[in-house]
């Protein structure tokens, strides 16, 4: 066994200071490998890219990256993503059809995804990193899927194993639970190529793991599940403060308010619940970003701020204040799409808050399994106004009589799901792969 520090090249375009739900998993992989004694080099998108696309970066999150992680920011080609005519290049704006057509042709030749143009710079920089310090393993984590294409190319060029970590499936639509593309789409060919030649294919829950094993039997033995986890330091300071009987209940959603959440169904249920004595004068606060991109903000904001009584959108907040935000809430509402292939990343943070959690998703969502054994989980049999009302009322009752024992039990359940615990087995496997 070699004593040299293994060197992992992490392809993580969404690495901090990007903001968004996938960023925590990518950061956690980097930190996990660093804690295992790896040299970690991350290839990430340049900061300006996120400012342009998302309107903001999360500098606080950047501070939570292990000091031994080296981040290389790569300028992401983004002309094709520009939607503001004013900021387009001369050729793009003046010859739009020809420009889009030529870009599509080039993209089809490189990789069948809109982010295909990141592959050349990522591969080139990966080779440069290897020239300076030998890379032992290439580890691609999170969207865009073109990163997996880059990992495939780097694996071949460097003759090193590569690992692909799917946060979301590519060729499977998790919402419809069907293929995401028509049968002859090149994405199927590419995914097969990538998965079958990967040293490991990692995904976020067992239903997805099973899907990959069935779809790619050649690689079935190399499919692993690493569930999302809890960054214990971030929600360490949540206070135990059950609401008094005469104080209105404070309900909250904490996380990215995505467009595919059942917002209307929840608000209908909320309006009904607020008529019940348990939620008299109750408040519902949404905390977090509105979608992932600036152009999706307005429609989501309109849906959240639709004038339902007691509901307010409070906006995003730094990660360092997460514990403080949870401390101000009595009940947490976890809105999710109802798919068995989806697991909420925020589920573990919600657990660590030690509050009653209302699961606004059908039981088939994999998050229901994650909450098995959580003492204060209030799910709904189906996502409609009546069921949401009943769950909210039950959660409000539970919040008022919550005991410290229950609070501690909730937090203990969360502590079974830290990132390091979740990533440990695959981390060890990658280490064994390198050290032989």
């Amino acid at each position, binding site marked *: 066994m070699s004593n040299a520090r293994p060197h992992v090249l992490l392809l993580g375009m969404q690495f901090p200071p990007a903001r968004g739900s996938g960023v925590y998993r990518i950061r956690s992989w980097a930190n996990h490998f660093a804690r295992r004694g790896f040299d970690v080099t991350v290839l990430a998108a340049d900061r300006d890219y996120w400012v342009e696309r998302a309107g903001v970066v999360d500098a606080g999150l950047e501070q939570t990256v292990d000091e031994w992680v080296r981040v290389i920011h790569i300028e992401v080609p983004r002309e094709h993503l520009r939607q503001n*005519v*004013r900021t387009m290049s001369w050729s793009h704006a*003046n010859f*739009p059809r020809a420009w889009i057509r030529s870009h599509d042709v080039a993209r089809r030749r490189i990789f069948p995804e809109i982010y295909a143009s990141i592959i050349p710079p990522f591969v080139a920089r990966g080779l440069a990193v290897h020239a300076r310090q030998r890379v032992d393993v290439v580890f691609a984590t999170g969207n865009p899927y073109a990163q997996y294409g880059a990992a495939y190319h780097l694996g071949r060029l460097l003759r090193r194993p590569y690992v692909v970590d799917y946060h979301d499936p590519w060729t499977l639509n998790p919402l419809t639970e069907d293929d995401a593309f028509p049968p002859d789409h090149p994405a199927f060919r590419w995914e097969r190529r990538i998965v079958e030649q990967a040293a490991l294919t990692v995904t976020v829950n067992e239903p997805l793991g099973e899907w990959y094993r069935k779809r790619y039997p050649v690689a079935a033995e190399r499919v692993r599940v690493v569930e999302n986890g809890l960054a214990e330091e971030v929600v360490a300071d949540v206070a135990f403060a059950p609401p008094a009987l005469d104080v209105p209940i404070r309900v909250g959603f904490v996380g990215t308010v995505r467009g595919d959440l059942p917002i209307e169904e929840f608000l209908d249920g909320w309006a009904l619940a607020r008529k019940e004595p348990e939620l008299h004068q109750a408040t519902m606060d949404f905390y977090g970003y509105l979608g992932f991109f600036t152009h999706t903000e307005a429609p989501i904001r309109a849906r959240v701020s639709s004038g339902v009584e007691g509901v307010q959108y409070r906006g995003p907040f730094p990660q360092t204040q997460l514990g403080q935000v949870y401390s101000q809430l009595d009940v947490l509402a976890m809105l999710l799409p109802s798919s068995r292939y989806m697991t909420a990343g925020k589920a573990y943070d919600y657990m660590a808050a030690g509050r009653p959690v209302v699961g606004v998703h059908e039981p088939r969502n994999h998050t229901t399994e994650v909450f098995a054994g959580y003492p204060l989980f209030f799910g709904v049999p189906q996502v409609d106004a009546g069921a949401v009302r009943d769950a909210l009322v039950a959660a409000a009752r539970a919040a008022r009589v919550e005991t410290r024992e229950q609070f501690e039990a909730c937090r203990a359940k969360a502590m079974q799901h830290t990132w390091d615990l979740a990533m440990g087995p695959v981390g060890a496997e990658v280490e064994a792969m390198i050290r032989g």
Partner: protein
Amino acid sequence: MPLGTGGGGSAAGPRRPRVLGVCIGPARRAAVVRMLGEVVAAGGSALLVTADGAVAPDLPDGVEALDLVAEERQVGGHRVISRSPVRLARRLAGRPAVPGPSLAWRAWSRSRPYRAIRPWVLWRALRRRLDVVDLDSLDHLVIVSVDSWPITWQLCRLRAELSYGWDVPDELYQRVGLTPPARD
């Protein structure tokens, strides 16, 4: 004229807001015409730019129209290919003129390469008519498709304060002290 200083309109100055609908092609024509009609009804001014020789017959009163088909045939080499030598000879011979463009122009204007560059050519055609556009008074562009991009990009370069979008935002009316039209 800076925004926010003018009223809905006066005999002395241009009526604000001034909105231009970049209707290259038939897409969303009816919707844009309706929006421009609302602008004029509210006290602003509006110009509909088209490029198919078919200005909406039901254009609301007060909405100006500018069709670029004739100007398009004057841009660069189009001046030459849009004139049929046969027709020229007929005219010189004193024989009755035949209406319509030349065969060469018909072939070129329907070709794939030309369709790819036509929106930019239309900008060059519009550039000759900036007097009609009244750029100094222009506040907002309504776009209909990617074909609107060249004109939008170029006009935004010429006038940095210009906004654009798929519709006319209420805020545009409010900035000049007008009441936005009521919508369903």
